[in-house]
């Protein structure tokens, strides 16, 4: 690409990490509840409600962190309602998740109507002292929002939790064979609810990140499919946190490349560039799904299936 200077490349990398963090956070959350056997198609709706909850809190309190807390709480509450329906009432997980997505879109538009013109207070940019001043790597890697680093830590921590800790083993057991976990005396349903609410909270933080950091304003429907992309990502990553992170940055790169190309004056209508992330998701999904056996080996065995504890 012509005209790509080291400075603009550094900015591109920084923007990629920023965009990737949104989907990574949501996808890691969804990974937790999918590992426990629950598929929540409501990600988009939870993120939308969390985005407005976070934004409104940010506007009123001036604090990003309270905004994130509000987003997490909104996501967890909605996920909790979803969890009660699918885990205790055994409603269809697809339909209930869809209902959550549609409801969230309506609710966020409704609540957000008074916030469309609002602005967040000006906040300082984050930078890691010392490292941020390094040439190239400074602007590329060390001037990010703290959540960018926390997300990487979360992915590593989650890998350890799932593969090395006893609680993680129980979580996976609940997702692979709820009957066995139940027989061993584990409370399958409360564990699933906890996993669903944790997933919702992370989706909520992702939603709040969109309206507080990524594009700091409120626009109806501003999540723009990132919740669905996060859902696709768990499959793409075969339910492994490190691969989720990788996939999310890949997605972030595609999104940012589009802006870069528009900035470079590439003679492609902007609409086609905006399509790129969605088409990329389809292509990745096709590539990954071609081998059904591979998906089946990696997928939590009880994913999407209701569990009825015996007497």
């Amino acid at each position, binding site marked *: 690409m012509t005209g790509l200077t080291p400075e603009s490349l550094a900015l591109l990398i920084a923007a990629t990490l920023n965009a990737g963090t949104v989907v990574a956070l949501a996808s890691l959350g969804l990974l937790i509840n999918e590992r426990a056997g629950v598929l929540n198609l409501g990600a988009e709706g939870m993120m939308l409600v969390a985005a407005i909850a976070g934004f409104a809190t940010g506007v009123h309190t001036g604090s990003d962190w309270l905004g994130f807390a509000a987003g997490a709480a909104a996501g967890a509450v909605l996920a909790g*309602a979803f969890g009660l329906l699918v885990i205790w*009432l055994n409603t269809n997980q697809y339909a209930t998740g869809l*209902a959550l997505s549609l*409801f969230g879109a*309506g609710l966020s538009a409704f609540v957000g109507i008074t916030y469309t013109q609002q602005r967040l207070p000006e906040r300082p940019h984050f930078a890691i002292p010392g490292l941020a001043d390094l040439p190239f790597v400074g602007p590329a890697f060390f001037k990010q929002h703290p959540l960018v680093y926390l997300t990487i830590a979360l992915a590593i921590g989650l890998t350890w939790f799932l593969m090395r800790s006893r609680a993680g083993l129980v979580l996976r057991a609940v997702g692979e064979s709820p009957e066995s976990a139940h027989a061993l005396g584990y409370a399958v349903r409360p564990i699933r609810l906890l996993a669903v609410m944790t997933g919702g909270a992370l989706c909520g933080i992702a939603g709040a990140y969109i309206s507080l950091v990524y594009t700091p304003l409120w626009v109806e429907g501003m999540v723009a499919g990132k919740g669905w992309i996060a859902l*696709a990502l768990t499959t793409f990553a075969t339910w492994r946190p490190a691969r989720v992170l990788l996939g999310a940055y890949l997605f972030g790169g595609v999104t940012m490349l589009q802006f870069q190309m528009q900035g470079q004056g590439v003679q492609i209508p902007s609409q086609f560039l905006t399509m790129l992330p969605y088409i990329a998701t389809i292509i990745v*999904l096709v590539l990954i799904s071609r081998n059904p056996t591979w998906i089946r080996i990696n997928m939590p065995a009880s994913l999407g299936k209701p569990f009825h504890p015996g007497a």
Partner: protein
Amino acid sequence: MFKLEPRAAPSKALTLASPLIALAVTVVIGTILFAALGKDPLAGLRMFFVEPLRSGYALAELSLKATPLILIALGLSVCFRANLWNIGAEGQFVLGAIFAGGVAMQATPDTGRWILVAVLGAGVLGGMLWAGIVAALRDRFNANEILVSLMLVYVAEMLLSYLVYGPWKDPAGYNFPQTITFLEATRVPKLMQGLRMNIGVFIAAAAVLGFTLFLYRTFAGFQLQVGGLAPAAARYAGFSSRKALWTALLLSGGMAGLAGALDVAGPQGQLTPYVPLGYGFAAIIVAFVGRLNPIGIVFSAVLMSMFYIGGELAQSRLGLPKALTGVFQGLLLFTLLACDTFIHQRLRWVGTK
């Protein structure tokens, strides 16, 4: 404590009553919501449940919303019965609108009435094409139809945006992102002077009849439903799951495309970035609330249209945001799913543990 236990047989009464209970719960929550917003709940409910039915004009407007909802939901009901989760009807609607608009723009003042058939046919084709991509990727590569169909919604909206901002922009349109207003010959004929209601209602009625026959009277419809309910049994009986996949997706895509064509050649009259009105998503709720049954879908589509018009009225007369519509629609599906669990299960008091 209470315990949920399976019923010996599904409750027939609850199968019918569940949507009504869900509606009642939604109304109760709506009343609380109106009160919380400082509006008179009765006035609020009137906008949603009385005003949309009060006059001939209101009913005609209702029909304009119910028609696309019925058409799309009929197609979706076949998909959902076959356990195929096409949730991208919105994108198929947009493609139908684009294809129909493309044909309609070719008309000259001398073009005969026949072109309307081509306009609607193109819409069906556009919708089928978009759903066909989903079917092909699922069939050939096992790609999840939920995610693919949904991603294609965004692609379709961008395609529409490109056309109306670019090559199809009306040169005399003061640079607004819109095509020319379609000529009279390409427009869906209205039924009465002064009302916007058009022959789309007859098409919807014919579709209801057609889908009733398909689902309950044809072998293909039967095979498709067995495949959805009991895939193993369908395989054992030799029913092709590939055929069911293509039939269901093409059928639902075609219906969504037809709805898109009727809407742009009807009330909208031109292509703009505002062609997608959310009918494709609302129709998912319509299909479920209507029990995936063609007659049920008619009732639930009318109800959902009342929510649409009620939302508009609440905005213009009570100063409430129009987005209330989406809140009510989402709530209705939520409560319906919860109520539905009691069709197959019942609560029983089992004493304290």
